[in-house]
């Protein structure tokens, strides 16, 4: 017996797979990189009777046909990494559809355990399931579970461990015995796996399967990697991904011939006939083993849906919910944000006080301005991120998100996308990075690329501090909310236009029709929601700890070096001495003048630094938008991460550790720029280049630098053109320049 068992968790979306995963692994989860809504490899550990189980949560899929990336990921994991046990989580209140995946897993010949989840719901709907009988049909252990109550988890673990033991026993036995592969029998010993039941596809199809299979057996490179019967069926089903694996033209020819023959005799295509046979097997098994005592419709779901998805009430309800989400995110988020701010303020003050006077070294500046300023500026958003993802995961787990996609489909269709693109876009208001990852649920590459391209136009949470700084600095109280609304709306409108343009140019083509399940409404579990929220928060903090920290230090360096030449510094020192001598009796005047000299020196130093020089160099380019070199310098920081813009502006205006609430900084901005420029700053920050991390994710998800660069340059050009037009027209009409 192995000391560690690898368990893969498969199942339909909405089968409660993630609740089972959470129950099995608890908080001991590991998420590789940034997760999408369901994709990415989630892993967790758990122990049972001294045996360690490594549980891998596969993406939720309806089948193993490799229709989408999700399905391909799930299938490849099972085929290539050969988990010891595959657990298929099944919504037992919707058995037939859910068992379709189970049949495919069964055909793959993996050691299988079926978790009949939501068994309470099935009972409530009047289903009586003969577990033993059904278990024999599928050749797999069946355990009834209620994921959100934690019922049946112990039994599930027991079944997993025992199935793994049997699997390894079979493997040993197989090594001793000679392999008997009797195709005509319903039970065959196949591959290095356990005894597996197979579906009988009827004489016509079975004959063709046998023909292809015998050709496959002859090719050892294939026979060693795949179960040949399974592969033969998949090839008959015209599985593109697997057809590519077959090199021999002889086999291809046979597949063509077999498909044609099946179609000729049965009058339907091979894939349809095979799918039909699978459902036939399932419904046969269910007829034997499942009794439906009462006929109950999901009445509550039905009632909610008739309101929520209705043509007239649907959209306002949706918009209202979205408003509520953002409102709560920002009002509830405020107090903890203040605590965090106060903490970092206290921290830098303490360090400053503790630092021995006279030894004002570079290190102090690095620590206070670079590290604390930078990291503090990021952690401040943690409450917002947590709350936003709390809301999103509640909407997702309850089943509302699918309705939102349904409602939005009409509108999204007009811009050449469909409702499913809406969810990633919505997440984009939180952060572009998980949003871009969430586009993996889109099957069509063109849909996906279009959605990914416009996601940065959804104003992310990191851009909020820029608006929070600028809006109160330039606009009266009554304008604050409408101004913010305007900015967000501009982003959405530009996104629609850009998507539309992409769909008729670079990503031309008819949008692929799509299917999506609207799961019954469910009460989200606190555990599930909490884990989801924590995951996002942690990823965000990791970003703060690594990327942002190094960027902050880098930025600090390019704003500090090269330092002012000695003679310059001496000149400021001389001025200070003159002031001190001249106003020796007038303390107030002396302090004011000294501060002015200090500021002048810091400003001169920044202008002299690398950042200042870059700002100067690009200033002529920024002039048409009304920006000067100081904004240019801050823009450099914004590429690292949008929120750095504020901190950077603070340094440029020598305010010290400035944040978006800094009145001093607002005052300085007010003195330097017109409200028109203020608006242009926000507009440019909204539309221009996405941050570095977004670009990195874009590269990874689109799998090409071409798209990442196209997005970066394309969006920046759009931003430049729009901002320039707004500034020039504003100047001409004398709007907001007073």
């Amino acid at each position, binding site marked *: 017996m192995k000391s560690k068992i690898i368990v893969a968790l498969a199942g339909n979306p909405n089968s409660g797979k993630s609740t089972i995963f959470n129950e099995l692994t608890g908080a001991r989860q590991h998420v590789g990189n940034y997760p999408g809504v369901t994709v990415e490899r989630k892993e967790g550990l758990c122990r049972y009777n001294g045996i360690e189980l490594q549980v891998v949560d596969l993406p939720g*899929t*309806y*089948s193993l*046909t490799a*229709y989408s990336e999700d399905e391909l990921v799930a299938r490849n994991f099972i085929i290539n990494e050969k988990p010891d046990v595959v657990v298929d989580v099944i919504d037992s*209140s*919707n058995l*037939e*559809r859910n068992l*379709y*995946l189970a049949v495919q897993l069964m055909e793959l010949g993996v050691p299988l355990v079926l978790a009949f989840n939501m068994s309470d719901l099935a009972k409530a709907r009047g289903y009586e399931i003969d577990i033993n009988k059904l278990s024999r049909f599928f050749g797999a252990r069946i355990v009834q579970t209620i994921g959100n109550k934690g019922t049946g988890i112990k039994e599930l673990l027991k079944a997993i461990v025992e199935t793994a033991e049997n699997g390894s026993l079979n493997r040993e036995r197989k090594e001793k015995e000679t392999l008997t592969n009797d195709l005509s029998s319903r039970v065959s010993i196949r591959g290095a796996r356990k005894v597996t039941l197979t579906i009988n596809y009827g004489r016509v199809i079975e004959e063709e399967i046998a023909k292809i299979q015998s050709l496959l057996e002859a090719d050892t490179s294939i026979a060693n990697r795949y179960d040949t019967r399974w592969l033969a069926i998949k090839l008959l*089903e*015209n*599985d*593109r991904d697997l057809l590519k694996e077959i090199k021999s033209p002889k086999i291809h020819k046979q597949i063509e011939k077999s498909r044609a023959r099946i179609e000729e005799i049965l009058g*339907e*295509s091979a*894939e*349809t006939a095979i*799918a*039909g046979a699978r*459902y036939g097997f399932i419904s046969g098994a269910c007829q034997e083993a499942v009794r439906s005592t009462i006929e109950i419709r999901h009445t509550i779901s039905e009632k909610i*849906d008739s309101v929520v*998805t209705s*043509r007239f009430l649907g959209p306002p309800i949706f918009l209202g919910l979205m408003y509520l989400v953002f409102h709560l995110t920002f009002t509830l988020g405020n107090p903890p944000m203040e605590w965090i701010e106060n903490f970092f303020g206290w921290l830098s003050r303490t360090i400053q006080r503790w630092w021995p006077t006279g030894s004002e070294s570079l290190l102090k500046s690095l620590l206070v301005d670079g590290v604390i300023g930078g990291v503090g500026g990021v952690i401040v958003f943690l409450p917002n991120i947590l709350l936003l993802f709390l809301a999103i995961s509640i909407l997702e787990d309850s089943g509302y998100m*699918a309705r939102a*996609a*349904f409602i939005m*489909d*009409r509108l999204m*269709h007009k811009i050449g996308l*469909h*409702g499913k693109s809406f969810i990633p876009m919505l997440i984009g208001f939180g952060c572009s990075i998980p949003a871009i990852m969430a586009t993996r649920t889109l*099957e069509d590459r063109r849909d996906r690329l279009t959605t990914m391209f416009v996601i940065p136009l959804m104003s992310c949470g990191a851009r909020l501090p820029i608006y929070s700084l600028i809006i109160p600095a330039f606009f009266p109280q009554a304008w604050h909310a409408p101004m913010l609304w305007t900015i967000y709306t501009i982003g959405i409108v530009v996104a629609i236009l850009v998507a539309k343009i992409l769909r008729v140019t670079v990503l031309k083509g*008819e*949008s*692929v*029709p*799509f*299917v*999506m*399940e*609207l*799961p*019954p409404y469910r009460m989200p579990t606190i555990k599930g929601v909490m884990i989801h929220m924590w995951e996002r928060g942690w990823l965000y903090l990791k970003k703060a700890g690594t990327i942002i920290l190094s960027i902050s230090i880098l930025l600090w360096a390019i704003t500090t070096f090269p330092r002012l030449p000695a003679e310059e510094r001496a000149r400021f020192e001389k001025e200070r001495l003159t002031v001190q001598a001249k106003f020796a009796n007038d303390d107030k005047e002396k302090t004011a003048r000294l501060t002015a000299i200090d500021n002048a020196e810091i400003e001169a130093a920044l202008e002299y630094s690398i950042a200042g020089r870059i700002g100067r160099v690009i200033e002529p380019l920024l002039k048409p938008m009304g920006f000067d070199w100081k904004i240019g310098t801050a823009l450099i920081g914004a590429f690292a991460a949008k929120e750095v813009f504020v901190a950077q502006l603070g340094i440029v205006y020598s305010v010290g550790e400035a944040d978006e609430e800094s009145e001093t900084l607002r005052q300085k901005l007010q003195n330097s720029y017109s409200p028109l420029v203020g608006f242009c700053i926000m507009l440019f920050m909204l539309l221009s280049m996405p941050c570095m991390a977004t670009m990195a994710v874009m590269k990874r998800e689109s799998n090409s630098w071409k798209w990442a660069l196209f997005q970066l340059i394309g969006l920046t050009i759009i931003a430049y053109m729009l901002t320039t037009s707004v500034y020039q027209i504003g100047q001409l009409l004398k709007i907001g320049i007073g």
Partner: protein
Amino acid sequence: MPLAIVQSGRRVRIVTVNGGYRLKARLAAMGLVPGEEVKVLRSSIHGPFLVEVKGSKIMLGRGMVQKILVS
């Protein structure tokens, strides 16, 4: 006839799906196979369709309902 012209509330049986391997496979995975009875919960001229099949609600895009033939 295509599913697209079926009105809400009607029950129909799928005859065939005009589409490629991927479309057929996807629909099959969702339970939409020839011979299966579906109930149209919501039909619309411009928006997506909502149907019930094998006890679950499935949303079908406009293009897709043209490709599913029912009787």
